[in-house]
């Protein structure tokens, strides 16, 4: 570990905290339907969309209608994406001549991008046409993100409103998020990315004759426009197989830094939106403090583990010490321009959020370095989290925390003036328990059936980690992988496809139910006996609940994978 490494991590954290307030203020105005500086350009377009789709933007939907609208929209998107992949061979923008995607893979990919997971069982540059990359995958990068943000806003309205039947209008939230938040940032940053070296073309792959006279075919494409929304919408599906480790997808350390900021920007700003909408910004900062604490714990562990490197490689006489001339550490599966610090930071950021983009091969991380992303996802990606999904996941834990605190003193718990009763606690627990059910359930099945055991590329505990990581990533809608796993099989495409569905929609529905139930409640005025939810005591309590309720569930499984491998590595055992 070096001073420079820690300084880069501190710099990144500072940028995120500084962005939260201005972006949060802007987003609050957007979702309140107020005028913004972009309204003169975007408002007419917004109106056209409502007119074509027959939406009355003043209609307030109750939670059931809101949820149904969201589900129907996602179903339509899923079917369209599936069809586009199956017919890509006869559709335009296919200079590389890709053939139709086969059914199992098309199902998995459509599910993956609809649920904001972006798990990729395929190699993009040899599978997908430019049309599918743009009009299929890029579209879902926008709308699955907008869906997540809309749902978070709906839940916040549940807290903010009193005795109300509605929680907003899904179509309006979806449209405004896409037009006013995601699109403008994408346009500006995409151009920055091109300037820094990302390709943006529709040309056929380039055939080069190398300096030594060999042939090299260089994949091209409209990379930058997809890259920016891939990060901003915490999608993470790479244009190329190597994702953000590919020099075209992440040409230098600046683009890398900006990509990480994009991943966290909206999620962190939403805590501020939350604070503003419930009328006390400190409530938002308290939530961000919980996230910040868990983030720093993760990044410190990953950075330490990756800097320490692999003792088995050092034992062969290889110099793994960091110096002015090399990054050192565990460089297997990492890129020179990012070294150790920027990789450890990216690993943590991409799994704290539900992004899943990678700038290194996670499969080759040290055991404890690989434990960090797995654990981050298993907590439900609430550390900033996926756009929207992170905030509502965290608020579910906040509900459980005030419930636990209420039990300790024997008082009906309240959060932001709303009485938390049996229904809310049941729904919150349901949403939280769905994750381990899918992650541990599917992993258990895959470790006993032949089709599952055929997957791992590595033997020993690392092979088990590959399986556990796959279902963790799928269920948590992350999309990163221990990519040695051969996941493009009927068994894995189907089971991971269902894990993604369960992790997304079975968590959303109880959450929207909570929003509806909270909105209908009156506000109880705060009294001397009210537990303040904007101070350090609350922050500490939520962290404790997250680690105990969320974390301990996975400890036995993690002990079999990363922990065993850690001791094996230090003991000199190979598999």
């Amino acid at each position, binding site marked *: 570990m070096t001073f420079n490494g820690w300084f880069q991590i501190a710099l990144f954290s500072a940028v995120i905290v500084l962005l939260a307030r201005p972006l949060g203020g802007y987003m609050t105005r957007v979702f309140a339907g107020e005028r913004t500086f972009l309204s003169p350009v975007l408002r007419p377009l917004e109106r056209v969309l409502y007119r074509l789709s027959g939406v009355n933007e003043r209609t307030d939907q109750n939670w059931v209608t809101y949820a*149904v609208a969201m589900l129907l929209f996602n179903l339509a998107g899923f079917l369209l994406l599936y069809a586009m992949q199956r017919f890509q061979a006869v559709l335009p923008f296919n200079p590389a001549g890709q053939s139709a995607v086969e059914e199992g893979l098309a199902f998995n990919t459509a599910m993956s991008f609809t649920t904001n997971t972006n798990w990729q069982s395929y190699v993009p540059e040899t599978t997908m046409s430019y049309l599918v990359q743009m009009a299929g995958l890029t579209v879902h990068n926008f709308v699955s993100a907008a869906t997540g943000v809309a749902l978070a806003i709906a839940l916040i309205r549940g807290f903010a409103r009193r005795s109300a039947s509605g929680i907003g209008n899904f179509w309006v939230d979806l449209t405004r998020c896409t037009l006013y938040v995601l699109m403008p940032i994408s346009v500006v940053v995409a151009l920055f990315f091109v300037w820094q070296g990302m390709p943006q073309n529709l040309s056929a792959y380039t055939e080069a004759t190398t300096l030594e006279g060999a042939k090299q075919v260089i994949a091209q494409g409209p990379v930058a426009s997809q890259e920016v929304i891939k990060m901003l919408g915490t999608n993470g599906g790479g244009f190329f197989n190597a994702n953000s480790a590919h020099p075209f997808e992440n040409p230098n350390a600046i683009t890398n830094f900006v990509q990480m900021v994009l991943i966290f920007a909206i999620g962190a700003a939403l805590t501020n939106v939350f604070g503003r909408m419930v009328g006390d910004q400190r409530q938002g900062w308290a939530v961000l403090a919980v996230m910040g604490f868990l983030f720093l714990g993760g990044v410190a562990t990953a950075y330490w583990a990756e800097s320490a490197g692999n003792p088995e490689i050092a034992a062969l006489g290889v110099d793994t010490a960091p110096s002015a001339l090399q990054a050192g550490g565990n460089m*297997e599966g990492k890129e020179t321009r990012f070294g150790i610090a920027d990789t450890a930071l990216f690993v943590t950021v991409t799994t704290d959020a539900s992004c899943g983009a990678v700038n290194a091969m996670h499969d080759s991380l040290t055991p404890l370095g690989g434990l960090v992303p797995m654990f981050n996802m298993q907590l439900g990606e609430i550390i900033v989290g996926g756009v929207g999904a992170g905030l509502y996941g965290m608020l579910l834990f906040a509900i459980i925390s005030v419930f636990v605190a209420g039990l300790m003193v024997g008082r009906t718990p309240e959060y932001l003036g709303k009485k938390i009763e049996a229904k809310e606690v049941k729904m919150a627990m349901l949403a939280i328990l769905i994750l381990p059910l899918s992650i541990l359930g599917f992993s258990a099945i895959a470790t006993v059936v032949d089709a599952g055991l055929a997957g791992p590329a590595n033997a020993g505990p690392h092979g088990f980690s590959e399986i556990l990581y796959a279902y963790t990533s799928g269920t948590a809608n992350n999309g990163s992988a221990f990519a040695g796993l051969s996941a493009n099989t009927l068994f894995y495409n189907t089971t991971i496809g269902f894990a993604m569905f369960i992790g997304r929609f079975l968590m959303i529905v109880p959450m929207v139910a909570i929003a509806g139930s909270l909105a209908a409640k009156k506000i109880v005025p705060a009294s001397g006996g009210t537990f303040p939810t904007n101070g350090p005591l609350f922050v500490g309590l939520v962290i404790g609940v997250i680690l105990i309720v969320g974390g301990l569930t996975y400890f036995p499984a993690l002990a079999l994978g990363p922990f065993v491998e850690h001791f*094996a590595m230090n003991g000199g055992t190979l598999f």
Partner: protein
Amino acid sequence: MLKEVRPAIVMIVCLTILTGLVYPLAMTGIAQTLFPRQANGSLIEKGGKVIGSELIGQNFAKPGYFRGRPSATTDTDPKDPSKTIPAPYNAANSGGSNAGPTSKTLIERVQGDVKALKEENPNAPIPVDLVTTSASGLDPEISPAAALFQVPRVAKERGLPEQRVRDLVTANIEGRFLGVIGEPRVNVLKLNMALDALGGR
């Protein structure tokens, strides 16, 4: 409920046109006008022929050139399309080794590379990035330590004084952005082109 079917269909179609066609095509148009070199892959041409991209590493096997990092990229086996064969620096199929830290295959591969490098330069410690595969398999760069390690071999092969080659490496080191962000590194293709320009054998 059925009321929501129409907006579901119209919205996905409209947003597909907007975010999936208008946005990327407009960005392509603007990018091609403002930054044509980068937008087309930062290609390097020599005598009218494309010799590569400055961002994409290429395979250097000749001893007279600096080598990049080991690459784990593959290609389909021409004899059996269901299998893959190693094809280092295949820029149409990026990817890493995905070998875990306790993988026997990984340690044996490193062992082999270490042996070859020790013969080539027994006096210096072996930089870790020279024996580990990159994430993309297309890493265009190596650490300054990895470049300096190769100086004796390259100088001998080219019949150039070591100091001259070492100076060339030093001149090709790119530092951190603003001295803070990223890691120092050397672009192998650019270094080798500068080496060719230097003359020697």
